[in-house]
């Protein structure tokens, strides 16, 4: 082995001993992913189920009961309250006890059983737009189906054969995530976010620690080359980051049944490409920070906008145009598209080409910039 590789091996071994004996780094590296995936997987969910519904039934006829049964049957709503006045209904919604209200007017059964048309009122609490919009479409869908059933029953009563009821029908198909589980969206995001934050924070603090504790002074007088120091610092944290990726994949599969529809090798390869950017940012931060705290702060400054603007929580397509353009400067944006496609769609590499190229450019660019700033002295 060349002298250079031998030095590199010593550096990496030293770094691993430090990691293993520093409980804080180890805890951060091992438990941060678990905590995040559990918190985000369960809490940041867009799945709308069991919305509490308050019902003001002024009719009490069999048709009204049939309508309520239709709502009860779909698991979007939970018939949580039966009230006797509009005021009561309003109070429940004001207090966020109920998120939606259904008002069945008097004479509803008569209208349905005769030949007339009936109207019911559906009230929504718009303060949480996600819940409101999902509830709205669910309520309409249920009502429509119910109306179709009533119409069919009427025609049958009149002795007519069942005709095609509607001239047009839209048959929707949801690909890849048919139940539209939010965890399928969140878990790949968590992988991206963890790779980025661990790689950047740990690299930055590991380098700054050498300065902060003064160990850099002894390193300077050894024959270790600057690039050896950089690589020796990076490799242990790359390995740690890959372990974290696998950890999140396993947790995602176990807890949320998130699929892995592409080969692990490809997932790790492209994740490694993304890691370059995180490591580069960490390296860069280490060249401007004097203390580990400063290093962490500077890394977090890039982390927060990346998380909000890269489509981690909010779809990029729904952002204002200016922010959409801004999102192009965050490598996390490209990686999220890649990792979501790989895991959920099992997509080929070909359609992801542009994103992969972008990651490559950012990774190499940031690394080169940071490496140029890196010095093995005290200036």
């Amino acid at each position, binding site marked *: 082995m060349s*002298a250079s590789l*031998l*030095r590199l*091996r*010593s*550096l990496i*071994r*030293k770094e691993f*001993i*430090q990691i293993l*004996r*520093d409980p804080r780094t180890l805890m951060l590296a091992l438990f941060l992913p678990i905590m995040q995936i559990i918190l985000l997987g369960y809490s940041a969910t867009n799945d709308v189920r069991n919305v509490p519904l308050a019902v003001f039934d002024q009719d009490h006829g069999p048709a009204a009961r049939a309508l309520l049964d239709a709502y009860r049957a779909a698991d979007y709503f939970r018939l949580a309250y039966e009230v006797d006045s509009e005021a009561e209904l309003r109070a429940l919604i004001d207090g966020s006890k109920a998120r939606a209200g259904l008002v069945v007017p008097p004479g509803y059964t008569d209208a349905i059983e005769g030949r007339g048309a009936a109207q019911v009122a559906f009230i929504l609490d718009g303060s949480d737009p996600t819940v409101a919009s999902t509830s709205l479409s669910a309520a309409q869908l249920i009502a429509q189906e119910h109306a179709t059933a009533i119409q069919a029953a009427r025609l049958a009563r009149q002795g007519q054969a069942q005709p095609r009821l509607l001239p047009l029908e839209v048959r929707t198909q949801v690909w890849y995530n048919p139940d539209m589980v939010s965890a399928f969206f969140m878990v790949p995001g968590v992988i991206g976010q963890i790779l980025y934050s661990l790689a950047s924070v740990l690299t930055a603090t590991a380098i700054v620690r050498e300065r902060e*504790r*003064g*160990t*850099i*002074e*002894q390193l*300077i*007088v*050894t*024959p*270790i080359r600057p690039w050896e120091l950089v690589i020796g610092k990076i490799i242990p944290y790359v390995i740690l980051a890959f372990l974290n990726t696998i950890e999140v994949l396993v947790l995602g599969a176990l807890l949320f049944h998130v699929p892995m529809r592409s080969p692990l090798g490809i997932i790790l390869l492209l994740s490694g490409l993304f890691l370059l950017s995180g490591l580069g940012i960490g390296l860069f931060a280490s060249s401007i920070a004097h203390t580990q705290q400063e290093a962490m702060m500077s890394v977090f400054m890039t982390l927060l906008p990346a998380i909000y603007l890269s489509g981690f929580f909010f779809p990029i397509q729904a952002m204002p145009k200016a922010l959409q353009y801004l999102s192009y400067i965050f490598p996390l944006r490209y990686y999220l598209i890649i990792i979501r496609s790989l895991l959920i769609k099992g997509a080929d590499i070909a359609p992801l080409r542009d994103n992969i190229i972008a990651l490559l450019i950012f990774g190499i660019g940031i690394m080169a910039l940071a490496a140029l700033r890196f010095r093995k*002295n*005290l*200036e």
Partner: protein
Amino acid sequence: MLHTENLTKHFGETTAVEGLNLDVAPGEIYGLVGPDGAGKTTTIRLLVGALHPDGGTIRVAGYEVPRRAEKAREHLGYLPQRFSLYEELTVLENLRFFAEVRGLSAAEWLPRSMEILEFVGLARFSARRAGQLSGGMKQKLGLAAALVHKPRLLLLDEPTTGVDPVTRQDFWQLIIRLVSEEGVAVLVSTPYMDEAARCNRLGFLREGRLLVEGTPTALRRQLEGRILELRGENLRALRSLAEADPLVEHAHLVGDRIHLRVREGGGSAPKAAAQLQKRLAARGGAVTSLLPVAPTLEDVFISLSSE
């Protein structure tokens, strides 16, 4: 072994080192003495290439620094002022790391490490984490790490500051053995005068400039016949009285005595002592004795600092 010419380093407005000329020969212990902020650490950092000079030249073991710093570093060992080994690693792991990155092979590093640990007296603690060593043991470990590659020049930055007196003795014994047995050249910075006295040659540094240089004996000779030792009661009052006397240039406490420096041209030391003792007694000073003594390095240092 070490040679600098006109070495200069500024930090913004601060002049840390100015026009420094140093020469250290093999087998010599050169002491860099000066108060806090004199530029000792900066000088040593320039010598190892950790800082880049604003002017002047440095040669270490024949190699120009910082241009050929990597070659020069093969021949130098550096013990920084601050502990600079890894606290999470054990004593032996630290030595192994520095031995390996210095190019010692798998077969070499262990015997060499054990040899140095025996030498500095830390063999018993080889499995202890460096962070759990006492201050003195940390310094010995630092010295051991600086010695793994058998350097010909050793740069020690205040190696015994904050170390207990017994360990300080040990430490100096080690340095003296290195110099006498292996002919190593040593440059050591220290704020302690008793340590300065052990050096072959001294340079007094103040505000980045070398004020004076020479052997301890030669430096002390400069004040020959001008130092009087005063004993008595109520030393504080005595000191103020003495300082007010036109014959006295400076007075400072040394334990339970006062050292007085008389002005140049103040006549012979015994005569001056007799005169002064009378005058102090006349002004109510409780003098027990006032006698000429040999100047100490501290006297020299104080005289240089107040110039």
